[in-house]
Each structure stands twice: as structure tokens, then as C-alpha cells.
């Protein structure tokens, strides 16, 4: 079984430890060993740690992976999976995996399961759970072809604990040559800010924020809480927040501990992205807004007054 470390992982982050946790359970049930694949030499350090978290083998793919978009990563994974006779390949559910997983499954003659939130094994049969219909329903899925290439939603699986096991045997392999049909021309990181998928706290704004300046206040609140700023479709459409901050069916699915929904009415489209949050705090002037029915805690108040007061409280706590 192969676990693919997060692409940018310089060390074994929580995301990869969650994959290793899921792999350990799956591996134990299927009597299968776990191999970690790190794409890019930057992952060498992560590779060293992996043994301690249950990986028996580690493969570091070296070379220029980025130059061909995802083509080289895809080819490298297909090659390794074939060589190892992988029964399953687990990847983090992110934008790169969205492109890689279905294509990898097809190349291996297997099945892809995207955005899995649960794994059950009974009598040697693996059943995957994943949200469908924008999170309004759940589906239990079993694969009709092997191997399964699954992407696992962040926060849905318990991270592997350090076992104190031996260091894994590390092999390096060179990135395979691909035909050059896809070439990276430019890549530019958007405005800094913690990734929404990783954030423990998300401060998200909707139509009720009223303008772009309101989002600057949210940035400050998110900073004080050590979190990230999100936005509803309405706020992105209004141009107050960039598209990569959008949470919802047509944006990102997030799983923070706390999700502050400020001035967000709670359309199904938005709720589809926040099902993974441990708790939603809804702040809205309209006590009948649907967001309150999805919330654990609610405050009926103007968002600006709320944000200003929160900032004051948190700054006070820092002094």
C-alpha cells in the first residue's frame, strides 16, 4: 500500500500523518505493508521520520517534477505502484490529487474514490465513505476494481502516533521522462495566508460584510486567532475576496475546529463546504438565517461590531 506524502512536505505534517494513520488501519486489516512516497527531494527529511509512523519503506522521487505540471508526478506514481504491486494508494484530498488520483487509478486499471471521510474493513472487504450531493448525503462505496486510489479528506482520519519503530529503508528514484505535452510556464503563489484546508480556525465572510474593507478586518481577526480567512460565493463574486478563498460546493471543503461564519446566510452551496468543521459559530443580524441551523454557537449581531469587539478582546488577552 502506498501513501503519497503531501507535495510540499518538508517534514511529515499532520496531513501525511493522517494518511499514515488510515494506511496503518487498512494495512493491518489487509495484511499489507505501508510504503511512503515523497515527491521531490524536499521530502527527504519527511522520509526519515516516516518509519517512526508506520512506513516500512520510503521512496523519494528526485528530479524536476514541476516542469510538466502533474504529468511527471503521475508517471512516477504509476511506475512505483506497478513495481510494488500496490493494493491501494492514499493521497491527501487537495487540488493536485484531484487531477492525479483518477488518472492514476485509470492507468493502474483500478478505481478512484475521491474525498473519502471514512474507511471500514469487514471480512477483508473495504468500504469507503464519502460525502455526495454537496455533503447533504453520504455514500458507502466499495471498489469493483483494484487497486483503489483514494484521496482522504483532511481532518477526517486520526493521525498516526509515533511508534518509536525503526527508521524506514529509504530508496531514491529518478523522475520518469514524460512526453512534454504539458509544460509549466509560470507559477506564482497567491497572497500569503494559511491554507484553508489546514487551518484550525477559519474566519469567513459573506454578503453581510458589505465591502472589501470588511475583509481587511477579518484578516486581522484571523491573524489574532492563528487562523485563515475564508469567503462565501457572494463575497467572491462581489470581488471582496479572491476565488481561492471560497468555501462551499464550488469552492473548498474545509475541516477546522472552529468556523466563524460572518454575515453568511447559509445557502446549501456554502454549507456543502463546512460539514467537516467541528463547530460553526454563526454571526448574523437575521436570527432566521439558515446558517444558525448549521451552527453550534450563534450570535445575532452586526458583523462589524462583532469583529471589532473580538479584535479588542483578543488584543486585550495578548497584553
Amino acid at each position, binding site marked *: 500500500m502506498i501513501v503519497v506524502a503531501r*507535495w*510540499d512536505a518538508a517534514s511529515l505534517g499532520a496531513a501525511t500523518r493522517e494518511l499514515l494513520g488510515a494506511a496503518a488501519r487498512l494495512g493491518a486489516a489487509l495484511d499489507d505493508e505501508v510504503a511512503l512516497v515523497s515527491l521531490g527531494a524536499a521530502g527527504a527529511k519527511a522520509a526519515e521520520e516516516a518509519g517512526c509512523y508506520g512506513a516500512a519503506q520510503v521512496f523519494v522521487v528526485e528530479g524536476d517534477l514541476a516542469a510538466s*505540471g*502533474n*504529468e511527471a508526478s503521475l508517471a512516477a506514481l504509476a511506475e512505483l505502484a506497478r513495481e510494488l504491486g500496490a493494493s491501494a494508494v492514499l493521497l491527501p484530498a487537495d*487540488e*493536485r490529487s*484531484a*487531477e492525479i488520483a*483518477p*488518472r492514476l*487509478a*485509470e*492507468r493502474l486499471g483500478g*478505481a*478512484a474514490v*475521491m*474525498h473519502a471521510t471514512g474507511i471500514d474493513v469487514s471480512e477483508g472487504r473495504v468500504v469507503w465513505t464519502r460525502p*455526495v*450531493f*454537496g455533503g*447533504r*448525503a*453520504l*455514500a*458507502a*462505496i*466499495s471498489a*469493483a476494481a483494484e487497486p483503489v486510489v483514494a484521496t482522504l479528506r483532511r481532518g477526517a482520519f486520526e493521525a498516526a502516533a509515533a511508534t518509536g519503530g525503526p527508521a524506514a529503508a529509504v530508496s531514491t528514484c529518478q523522475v520518469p521522462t514524460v512526453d512534454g*505535452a504539458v*509544460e509549466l*510556464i*509560470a*507559477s*506564482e503563489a*497567491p497572497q500569503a495566508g494559511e491554507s484553508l484546508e489546514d487551518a484550525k*480556525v477559519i474566519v469567513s465572510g459573506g454578503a453581510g460584510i458589505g465591502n472589501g474593507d470588511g475583509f481587511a478586518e477579518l484578516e486581522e481577526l484571523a491573524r*489574532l*486567532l*492563528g487562523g485563515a480567512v475564508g469567503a462565501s460565493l457572494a463575497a467572491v463574486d462581489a470581488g471582496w475576496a479572491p*476565488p481561492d478563498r471560497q468555501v462551499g*460546493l*464550488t469552492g473548498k471543503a474545509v475541516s477546522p*475546529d*472552529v468556523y466563524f461564519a460572518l454575515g453568511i446566510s447559509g*445557502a*446549501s*452551496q456554502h*454549507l456543502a463546504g463546512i460539514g467537516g468543521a467541528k*463547530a460553526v459559530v454563526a454571526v448574523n443580524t437575521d436570527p432566521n438565517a439558515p446558517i*444558525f441551523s*448549521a*451552527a*453550534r*454557537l450563534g450570535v445575532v449581531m452586526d458583523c462589524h461590531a*462583532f469583529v471589532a*469587539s473580538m479584535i*479588542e*478582546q*483578543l488584543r486585550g488577552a495578548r497584553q
Partner: protein
Amino acid sequence: MHAVVLLKQILDWELPPSTFRIDPETKRPPDGIGPTLLGPFEQNALELALQLKDAGVVDRITALLAGPADGVDALRKALALRCDEAVHVEVDADDAIDPSQTAELLLAGIRRLEPAELVLAGRQAGDWDHGQVGYLVAERLGRPAVGLVWRAEQRDDGRLLVSRSGNGVDEQLAVRPPAVLTVTSHPSLQLRMGSVMDRMAANRKPITRWTLDELGLSREQLDAARRVEFTEVWVPQVERHCELIEGEDPAEVTAALLGRLEELKLLTRPA
């Protein structure tokens, strides 16, 4: 360049949770519990195709859909926005759930059409959310694919220059056609409205219908294409009780809220 846009008509994704349900027998929402619409990402893919036609990169757009009878509405919409041709591979709703089967149906349609240098698909269907069909079509055609694209233009060397987001990094990639792109939502890809005249004209335009037989696909082939089994589909019952935090003034409310979040071990206040 001939572009094929893969469309899907889906249950209204804004249907309120109180109305949404799953029939445990068929493992999908019962027919008729809400309106069906052209899926959100298919709207983005269609808009990108139209923009490429406006720019002169694409000279011909075929809208292709594999699904039950209500798919005609999506194809009419495509014709109203001046797609050149609309093709409906008519199958039962149950045959368009497994992404591999859906890809097989669309692929049979694509192979029957005049060769397309570009295939555009939504990044995922807004109902089953698999996010696989575009990529499976690319692999089975042996073509390169770039996912989550929100802009495309043609370079002097004939390649397409596409913009996409890859793990929070904005990327520009050059792709040599024939290629497959999956398209994501972006403010620049909101589907245009079209004119009333064009909508009326679209009602008179023909929609090509192909059956499995006509595509040379047997029931057995379609069954063999299945890659996943849905053992159960259900609506989770989540009992949520929203606890309202109240107070005399904002400071009292936010202090109480922060206290409650700490009590629930959801937040640790920065030291």
C-alpha cells in the same frame, strides 16, 4: 478547433435540506423532488468554450451529454448560447452514477463525433461530486489533461496557455492539443445569459440522440466499465442545536463566546 463540452443536468444544488432525501432502494434522490439544472461546473466549462469561440480559438462547439431525458434542457441551453451542435446519449439515471460508466458513454459519443482538438469538462458533477469523468476521458483517449482550469488562450505556437490553481499556487501551463481540460468555478466564468431570440431559436434546432446500440455499446460493456459499487447512500441525521450567546453589549457577547469556545476545547486563546 473543434471543442466538445461535456454537460450534465443535475438536481438543484440549492434544494433546501428539508426537501432533500435519498430513496434507500434506488440509492439516489427520488425523481421530481426538485428542479434539475445544468450543473455549476458544466456552466463554467460551457462559458470557457464560448469565450474560446469569441476569441477565435475554437470555431465549433458540440455540447455532449450522457444521462436521462431531462438532459435535453441542458442541451437546449447550450444551443441557445450558440453551441453549434447538441448530442444526447440517452441512458437511465442509474447508468450515469459510476464515473467510469459515464466516461465510457461520453467517450463513445466523442469517438462518433468529428475529431475534437479540445474536450472541456466541469471539475466535478455537482451531485455525486466524483470529480473523475474528465480525467478518465482524457486517459482513455490517450490525451494530456489539465485540471481546475479557469482561463485558456492560444499561444503563437498553437499550444493552449491555461491558468489553474494547484494547491493554492496559481499556475500557467502550456498544453498541446488535442487535450482535455477540467474547468473550475471563477468569477470570470459565470455563464452568460444569452438573448431571448436565441433561446427561441434554440427550441427549433435539432438535438442528435444516440442510443447505446447506435454507439456500438452493449449492456455488457457498460456493466464491465463499472468501477465502484454504491452499497448504501443515506442522509446523515445531525441533531444540531444552536446555542445563542447573548449579552448587554458586544464586549459582553464576545467575551462569553470566547469563554464558551475555550470551555468546549475548540479554541485556545493566544497566550
